[in-house]
C-alpha cells in the first residue's frame, strides 16, 4: 500500500527570544493552529484521521504530557483521533512523517497528521535535562561534546575555512530572501493569530536579507571557549589525528533558534477518494541511522546513500535535495557525500536564514521542497536532517 502526502502547512518561524513575535503564543496554540489549518483548508472530517504524531524535542513544562494528543483536543479534532509526541531530536518532525507514512503503508491506518512543534523562546533547548549531557557516567562513556564542536570538527576534517562556511551562510540568506520575495512559500505558510484573532506573525522573522561576508566576519566563533574548556580534548580523543579544532561556526552560519509548528496530512489512496483530496506526492521510502555521536552531525550522507541504494535509486535520480542547515559544515559535508551541488540543494535557503524550530523543522523542510518540486514541475526530492547523539533521518518523496 502507498502513503501519500495530501497537504502540508507551517507557521512562520518567530525569533526564539523574548522579543520574538511568537513568544506570546503558547506551543500548544502553535500546534493547534497548524492542525486547524490542515482541517479547515481541506474541509477535512477529522474523524478520518487516526493519529496525530508530533515531534517535540523539549517535551517538558509547556511542551510536556504528549502535545500530540493534547493539540488534537485543543484544535477540536474528533475525539477519536489519537495522538503521540515523539523525539528524534532535530529530525523529529521528519520522523513523524515517516512513522505516519509507515502506518499508512502497512495498512494500519488510513490517514494521519504528522508534524512537529517547538517554542524555543518559551521552552529552552535542553530544558528536559537528560543523562546524555549531565549524567557523568553516561556523558563520559559517550564522549559527549556539544553539536557546535561536532560542526567545527567537520570543518576541520574537511578543510572548510571560516570564509567557506560564511559564504554558504550568505547564500542561504540570499536564497531565502528571494524565495519570500517571490512568494514561493505563500501556499503553505499560515499566519499565526492571537486569542483575539489578530495576526501575530505571517513571515519568517529570523531572516537577515542582504547579509554580507563582512557582516558575518565580525562574529566571534561560538564554540572556541567550550572547546578550550575541554570539549576539543574530547574531540581529539575520538579523532586523534586532529592537531587542533578550527572553530569556524558562529551565530551567523548556524541554524537560528526560533519558534514554529508544522503539519503534514498523510493518507492512503482510499482516504483520497473518501475526501476528494488529490495526493501531491508519494512517500517513496525513508530511513534513520545512528552515526558517530561525538562528531554527531555526519549522518545525513551515509543515511541518504543507504536509503537510495535500498530504493534502487542513484543520487542522479533526485531532482532536489533538502538538508537541514544545522551548521554550515553540515550541508557542505552532505554535498560532498552525495556528490550534489548548491544548484539542486536547499535552493530556497535553509535554517541558517529561516531558523530551526527543533521538533518541527523536519516537516517544514519537507513542505518547502515539495512546493519547489511543484513550482519547477520536477519529480523527486530527498529530505534529510542530522540529529543529536549521532543520528540522521532521510526521506524520498516523488510527485504524483
Amino acid at each position, binding site marked *: 500500500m502507498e502513503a501519500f502526502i495530501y497537504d502540508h502547512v507551517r507557521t512562520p518561524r518567530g525569533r526564539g527570544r523574548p522579543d520574538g513575535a511568537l513568544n506570546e503564543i503558547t506551543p500548544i496554540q502553535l500546534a493547534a493552529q497548524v492542525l486547524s489549518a490542515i482541517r479547515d483548508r481541506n474541509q477535512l472530517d477529522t474523524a478520518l484521521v487516526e493519529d496525530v504524531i508530533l515531534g517535540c524535542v523539549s517535551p517538558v513544562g509547556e511542551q510536556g504530557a504528549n502535545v500530540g494528543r493534547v493539540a488534537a483536543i485543543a484544535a477540536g479534532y474528533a475525539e477519536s483521533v489519537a495522538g503521540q509526541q515523539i523525539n528524534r531530536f532535530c529530525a523529529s518532525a521528519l520522523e513523524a512523517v515517516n512513522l505516519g507514512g509507515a502506518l499508512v503503508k502497512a495498512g494500519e491506518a488510513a490517514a494521519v497528521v504528522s508534524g512537529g512543534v517547538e517554542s524555543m523562546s518559551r521552552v529552552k533547548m535542553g530544558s528536559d535535562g537528560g543523562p546524555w549531557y549531565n549524567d557523568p557516567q553516561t556523558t563520559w562513556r559517550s564522549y559527549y561534546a*556539544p553539536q557546535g564542536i561536532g560542526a567545527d570538527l567537520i570543518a576541520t576534517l574537511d578543510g572548510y575555512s571560516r570564509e567557506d562556511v560564511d559564504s554558504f551562510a550568505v547564500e542561504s540568506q540570499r536564497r531565502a530572501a528571494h524565495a519570500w520575495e517571490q512568494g514561493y512559500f505563500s501556499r503553505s505558510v499560515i499566519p499565526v493569530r492571537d486569542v483575539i484573532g489578530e495576526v501575530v506573525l505571517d513571515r519568517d522573522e529570523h531572516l537577515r536579507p542582504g547579509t554580507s561576508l563582512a557582516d558575518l566576519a565580525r562574529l566571534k566563533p561560538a564554540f572556541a571557549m567550550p572547546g578550550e574548556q575541554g570539549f*576539543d*580534548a574530547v574531540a581529539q*580523543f575520538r579523532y586523534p589525528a586532529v592537531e587542533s579544532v578550527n572553530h569556524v561556526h558562529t551565530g551567523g552560519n548556524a541554524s537560528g533558534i526560533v519558534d514554529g509548528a508544522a503539519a503534514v496530512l498523510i493518507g492512503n489512496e482510499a482516504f483520497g477518494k473518501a475526501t476528494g483530496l488529490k495526493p501531491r506526492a508519494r512517500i517513496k521510502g525513508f530511513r534513520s541511522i545512528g552515526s558517530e555521536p561525538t562528531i554527531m552531525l555526519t549522518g545525513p550522507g551515509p543515511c541518504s546513500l543507504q536509503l537510495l541504494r535500498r530504493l534502487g535509486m542513484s543520487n542522479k535520480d533526485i531532482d532536489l535535495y533538502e538538508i537541514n542547515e544545522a551548521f554550515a559544515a553540515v550541508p557542505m559535508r552532505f554535498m560532498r557525500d552525495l556528490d550534489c551541488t548548491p544548484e539542486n540543494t536547499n535552493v530556497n535557503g535553509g535554517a541558517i536564514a529561516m531558523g530551526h524550530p527543533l521538533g518541527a523543522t523536519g516537516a517544514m523542510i519537507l513542505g518547502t521542497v515539495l512546493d519547489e518540486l511543484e513550482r519547477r514541475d520536477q519529480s523527486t526530492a530527498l529530505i534529510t536532517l542530522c540529529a543529536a547523539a549521532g543520528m540522521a533521518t532521510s526521506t524520498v518523496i516523488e510527485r504524483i
Partner: protein
Amino acid sequence: MTALNITVDGDGIALVSIDSSERPMNVLTEALQAELGAAFEKLAADETVKGVVLTSGKPGSFIPGADLKDFVSAHDRGMSAAEAAASSRKLQGVIRHMESCGKPFAAAINGLALGGGLELTLGCHYRVLSDHPKAVVGLPEVTVGLLPGGGGTQRLPRLIGVAKALPLMLTGRPVKPAEALELGIVHELAPADEVVSRARAWVLTNPQAQQPWDVKGYKVPGGVGPQAAYANQAFMGGVAQIRKQYSENVPAPLAIMSAVYEGSIAGSIDTGLRIESKYFGQLLSGVVARNLMRTMFINKGIADKLGRRPKEFAKSAVTRLGVLGAGMMGAGIACVAAQAGIEVVLIDATQDAADRGRAYTGKALARVLSKGAITQERIDAALGRITATTDYARLEGCELVVEAVFESRDVKREVTQKAEAVMPQTAIFASNTSTLPISGLAQASARPKQFIGLHFFSPVDRMPLLEVIVGEQTSQETLAKAMDFAGQMKKTPIVVNDGPGFYTTRVFSTFIDEGACMLAEGVAPALIENAAKMAGMPVGPLAQYDEVSQELSWKIVKQARADGLEARFTRPDAAPVLEKMMALGRKGRRFGGGFYEFPENGKKFLWPGLAKHFPLRPAQPDAHELRTRLLTIQALEAARCYEEGIVTDAADADIGSILGIGYPQWTGGALSYIDTVGIEQFVADCERFAAQCGQRFAPSVWLKARAESGERFYPLPKAA
C-alpha cells in the same frame, strides 16, 4: 591503649577528646573508627548524657585523614570492590549513627581536619572551627585516587550545594577557616582555646538535633539533577574537563562526580551513602589509587625524609654554597639555596654573566611576590645572600660547590681544578651535568671520593627532583652530605649509579626519540602528540624535542660517538631524524623552530613542512597502540637501568620518572607501570613492538626470565 578521653560534666554534656597515643596526629585508622563507633553507641544509650562535644587532644590538629598504608595494601591483598565498599560502609555507619541518634553532637575543630576527619565533623550537628590560619579543612581524597568515602560526597553538597561542593572534592584543596565559614562548611569560628566552650554552649541550647537532610521537606540547596541551573557547568563541562586534564587514566574525578550526581538526586541520604560506597569500592580496589598512594605519598614521603641516606654519618649542613656557572641552571640553584638560608657564591667567567645570574633570583621571586606568596623582605634577604663574582677565591669556606657550566669536559675540568684549589679539603664537589658520566669528570678532581653528581631539573625553583649520582669513587659520606643538602633545598632526592645519561636523561631520551621514530615511519605528527597526551604525558615527544632542542641532542649524539660509547647510547634510531632536522635548519624552539612553528603571536603549531620530509603512510596506526608504545619504551629503559644497577631501588626509579621526566602519575612510575600491566603482558608488548618497530624494544634475557617467574618490582605482601 584507648585514643579517646571521655568525660561527662554536670550538665550531662560529654566531651570526647581524641588523642592517639601512638602517633603525633590523630590518623583515622580502622581501630580509631571502631573506637569512635563504640563510644558513640555508648553515649547514645547513656541516659545521663544530653549531648556530645567532639574534639582533639592534639594542639593544632583535629584529624588529618585516614591511614594511607591501610589503603595501599588493599589492592595488593586482592581486595574486591565489594570488600572495599564495605570498608566505606563501616565508617559511614559510625557517622550516620552519630548524626541520627537524636542527641546533639558538636565538633570543636581545634586544628586541621582533612578527609575522614572533616567527614566525621560533617556528621555532627554543629561545627566550630579554630580561626588559626593553619586550621584548614578539606577533602583531598582525589589526590590519592580515592573519593571521600565517609559520607563526604553526600553531606558536603547537602550542606553547601553541589555547585560549591564539587570543585572542593575534585581539586582536593585545603580551605582556610575564613573561607570555610563563608562557604558554610562550618557554623562558627573561634580562637583555638575557645572552640570547646563554644561547642558546648551550642549543645546546651540545642537539646534536640537533627541534620537538615533528615528533616521532612528538605531540599538540597541549589537543586539537584540535570535540570539544575549549575548542571551544564558542573557536569557537562566538568566531565569534559576531566578528560582534558587527566586523559582517561585516572578514575577518581569521574567517580566523585558520579557519586555526587547520582547520590544527590536520590531522595534519601542513606541511598546516597550506598552509592558513594560503591564508587569508593571501585576506586580503592583499583590499581591507580594504589599507584598514586604508593609512589606519590608513601615512597615520596620516604625520599623527602632522606630514607636512602647512609645512616652511619652525622647530619651535616651547607652554610656556604659555591655555584659555578650563572646560566639558567646555576642561577636557579642559587635562587633556591638562598631562599633556604644558604650563603651563595655565584661565579661566572664575566661579572656581567654573574650579575645576570643573580638577577634571576630577583625576577623569579618577584613573580611569587605578585601572587602574594612571599614578602619583599624575604626577597631582599635571599638576594642579600648571593654574591655574584668572577673570583674563585670567594669559594673559601664552601662546604659544597656545584658546577653548572657548559657540557664540555674541558670546561668542567678547568673549573673543577680552579675551585678545588680554594675549597676546604673536606668540601664536596658536585656536577650538575645531565649526561657526562660522573666517574669520568671525577678524574679532574683531586679528591674523587668527594666528587658526586647532583642533577637538578629545570626550572630549579619549581622542579622537586634531585638526581644524586654516585660515581665509582664517591664515598658514602659524600653521599650522606649530598642528601643532607637535598633536604636543605627541599628537593626529593633519588640515588642512582653512574652511566651514560644516568637514569632520568636515559629514560627521557627514549620518549622523545620514539616520537622521532614514529615520525620517520610516517605516523601523522598530530597523532603522535595526541597519543602521548592519552598516555598521560604532559607534553608530546615532538614538542618536548623542540624544548630540549635538536641542536643540543645532536651535540650529545656526536659527543657519544666521539667518546666511543656503545651503539645503543648514541641514539641510533632517532639519529637519522635528528640529522635531517639539523640539515633543514629546524634546530629547536630557541633556534626559530623545530617540529613546531613558534609564531610571534599565537599558539605554536606543527610545522607544515613535516609532511614533505616525513611523508605520511597511508594506513595510520591506532592511537592506543602508539600510547602503549610510548609508555613501554620508557618503562623498558627504566627496567634496563634497574638490570644494569644504574638504579637499585624501584621506588627511586618510579619517583624519578614521574618527578623528573613527566612519566604519568597514574602508573605509579616507569617500573610500577610494568607491575600494573603485568610483566607477562609487558614483555609481550615489547616483543610485539620489537617485531613491528625495531630491536630497541627487544626485552633482555633478564626481563624475560622475570616474566617467566612473574616477578614484580614491588613484591606482593606475603599472606599472613
